[in-house]
């Protein structure tokens, strides 16, 4: 049983450009860069017939690909794979609703809003809120604020 939950969340495109990096553990900048490159290397070589899980150092990456973007969550080896796999999908559905058919560019131009979405759904490496209705309601309320 882990005490740590999610170690980091990464969204990367196929070329390896990071679209979101959210760290729930202390890493120094060099280490972050290394992790980003390693994750890209292990995830992009896998195809649709492979599982959505891959062992990574002492952890595992649960990932799902949407168009050209890889959504990756790094957790402990004994964490629940499918729960995190669907947490990714839940998150993507919220982004899709919030940005009206989300595409990679939305994440680029609105990077500061993506952080808000993440914080609504994941906090301190744990799943915070899972109801799409509740998250979207909150996001729209924030959107309406000045």
């Amino acid at each position, binding site marked *: 049983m882990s005490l740590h939950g999610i170690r980091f969340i990464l969204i990367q495109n196929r070329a390896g450009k990071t679209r979101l990096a959210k760290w729930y553990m202390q890493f120094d900048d060099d280490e972050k860069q290394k992790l980003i490159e390693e994750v890209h290397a292990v995830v992009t070589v896998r195809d649709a017939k492979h599982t959505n899980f891959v062992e990574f150092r002492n952890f595992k990456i649960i990932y799902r690909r949407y168009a050209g973007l890889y959504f990756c969550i790094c957790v402990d080896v004994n964490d*629940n794979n*499918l*729960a995190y796999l669907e947490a990714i999908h839940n998150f993507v559905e919220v982004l899709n609703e919030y940005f009206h058919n989300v595409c990679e560019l939305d994440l680029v131009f609105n990077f500061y809003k993506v952080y808000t979405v993440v914080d609504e759904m994941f906090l301190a490496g744990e799943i*915070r809120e899972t109801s799409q209705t509740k998250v979207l309601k909150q996001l729209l309320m924030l959107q309406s*604020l000045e």
Partner: protein
Amino acid sequence: MPAVSKGDGMRGLAVFISDIRNCKSKEAEIKRINKELANIRSKFKGDKALDGYSKKKYVCKLLFIFLLGHDIDFGHMEAVNLLSSNKYTEKQIGYLFISVLVNSNSELIRLINNAIKNDLASRNPTFMCLALHCIANVGSREMGEAFAADIPRILVAGDSMDSVKQSAALCLLRLYKASPDLVPMGEWTARVVHLLNDQHMGVVTAAVSLITCLCKKNPDDFKTCISLAVSRLSRIVSSASTDLQDYTYYFVPAPWLSVKLLRLLQCYPPPEDAAVKGRLVECLETVLNKAQEPPKSKKVQHSNAKNAILFETISLIIHYDSEPNLLVRACNQLGQFLQHRETNLRYLALESMCTLASSEFSHEAVKTHIDTVINALKTERDVSVRQRAADLLYAMCDRSNAKQIVSEMLRYLETADYAIREEIVLKVAILAEKYAVDYSWYVDTILNLIRIAGDYVSEEVWYRVLQIVTNRDDVQGYAAKTVFEALQAPACHENMVKVGGYILGEFGNLIAGDPRSSPPVQFSLLHSKFHLCSVATRALLLSTYIKFINLFPETKATIQGVLRAGSQLRNADVELQQRAVEYLTLSSVASTDVLATVLEEMPPFPERESSILAKLKRKKGPGAASALDDGRRDPSSNDINGGVEPTPSTVSTPSPSADLLGLRAAPPPAAPPASAGAGNLLVDVFDGPAAQPSLGPTPEEAFLSELEPPAPESPMALLADPAPAADPGPEDIGPPIPEADELLNKFVCKNNGVLFENQLLQIGVKSEFRQNLGRMYLFYGNKTSVQFQNFSPTVVHPGDLQTHILSGLGQPPTKRVAAQVDGGAQVQQVLNIECLRDFLTPPLLSVRFRYGGAPQALTLKLPVTINKFFQPTEMAAQDFFQRWKQLSLPQQEAQKIFKANHPMDAEVTKAKLLGFGSALLDNVDPNPENFVGAGIIQTKALQVGCLLRLEPNAQAQMYRLTLRTSKESVSRHLCELLAQQF
């Protein structure tokens, strides 16, 4: 719903981002960024005060630049200013900038405490959440110091909004993880547990995570969460797919919350309350039943969410390991998944079944799926799935299916990915040994391993086959015949040559009667491989040759010819040259009798635990090899296959090649008239100037190198006469001084300090230990103003101790401790120590000198205790308990209950346990007051896994200490050593 337009609100930011995206080269990008940085800098420095909007925009641009990977060295103050804005969008950018950049600038934290305090007190839920998220994202100790006291209050306040409670719960969790001491729960505990009853499912979702984390440290305080969690779970599981509305995900009610609740329950044993337990079992059955129902949706999201709960349910069932009915049902369910079209499910089923295989209730049920698993090993496209299949085969292996599983693994090895070959090799080697009914099968299997994957067969594996063949005379003839045949292959792996060379050197005589494998044929077969082999292998073959001269006098002339050849006698490699020279001389000058004695067949290897198993454990972490340690399932196996019976009369030489000629075992011809077990012999061998040059890697070098086991080429002091014993025989040594034991006890948990002191002399010790080796520096200080004369410190191994531990004076003779120590001076002595087997009493240190004409003598115990060779092992709670259970024979456990001799301080205890050498495992013992540790005692001959548990009872001022190891004497000895320390 208003769509979010691109970069809405901050046009300048959108333009800048577009510009960057349009840059054609890295240089262009840098140029554009520098231009922007200059612009922002001038704005921030300008006379005109910036409005909030501009500040927000520029800070956001800086953040973007930082995220592109550039350093940002200004703008922090502007970001901090944004925190005091009362506009949400400005505040949000300020907080974001700080959360993202804080790693690079921890100075920032101090600047923002005030703003956070204000927001927390603002009663504006949006602002409170921003502040809480910032604390949770940064999570530093400084944050904890500033806010840990406020957050529980916010969490349980009646008027806090739900969203604030959610954030507060997880914020607290983060602070608790970072610095548990700053989060005193006490008064809040009950109210936090009751959050499990909260109406808002989001609050419950956040709170379960917090409680799971807290209860690991204080399980008793949070015990009430069990019944609350069970009733919450029961309500979710039994609800219809639409009851929970917002929290229903693809027709599955609250999947994430269910998973979290099931994980919380895994922190505890099964509920004691029968009603609670009944309700929980009902839940678990419901989940298993639902798995059989037709899906409510074809979407993968539906089945994933449902199966997330199912797998967590199975984890809980395995955790309890007490409901045979549920375990078998779980196994059947996983069996269905093994053939599912979703790769994810097949993977997870294999993984989960692996843990089921180690439960006695479900082991048989798991075994029924063997064919499917073998098929997975052959056909899965994803290597990680194949690896899980191999793990499962290993876990389900027992005597009934070992031959099938081993042969399938061997077949798989031919095509296996390089990354997992070594692991498969180890597994096959272990299974073959563990479940061998006849040893010819074992020998065949290992030779097949070498044939198929020779590069991945580590020393441990081929050493092991040699040990087993040496110890079992019923297989020696077969082994000789088989290696002889294997060596016929035109291209055989070098490891095959090593095994072949060793076995023929020992047992070639058993097949020499057959003209097809007559001695000359054997020799020329081996020698045909000689020139293509590495130095190590050639060295081994030279030893085989000299053994041949003894076994088959008819080969003497040929072999002497080979040894005499210029390519050997003048070999550039000193090791080969030395062997050639020494062997040639030995074969020419020694009488047949001497030859026969020196080159006698190797004595049996005294060893119990397989070194391969230890290697697999190292590779995979403890627990990985559990199926193999598991005597419970197959108790009879220990008798036949549990390694080699110890033979107390022989010296341990686990590495068969380290001592090919059995020199250490045989009483050396030049030994002084048997003085109580030739106690000093080995000290002499290491120490004697005559022996020194031929020692090759001295213990000293070995220590500095990677601490590998002695390489096969490790030479012997074969022809060197041991130096005349300079040390006093044990009979000259006085008994240890009365305080010796007490002094020794001081060093059980530490390596450095003053070992002894009186008016004349002070002896200091500094030592370091790694694996089974150690080095000790002894400092002798003359406290007087008069010179000590004839100063001679020596190390003695009383009785047969030298067969257990070697402490040699490792320094070159020239740097010996001077015979005179001037007044006020200090001299230093270095000892190299090697632990061969476990031992109970330490070597003795005898110091003699003349002070003002009067002889002084002093005998101390050298501070070397078995725990010095402890290697800490980290493991998870699950693994720990599994291993603990496995060591449940009464003689494997030693326990002591004793009064505390020192104040009972947890930190001091911790430090002592760490000093003792074991790893301290957190979150294993349900009682946080207790200490749990694990480690492996490394000796050359064997490794002894040790688990320990120390339970302080502050009220009674007592401790209970329990040790479990695989060896009775070690358990008792460690228990005694450690009990003295508290």
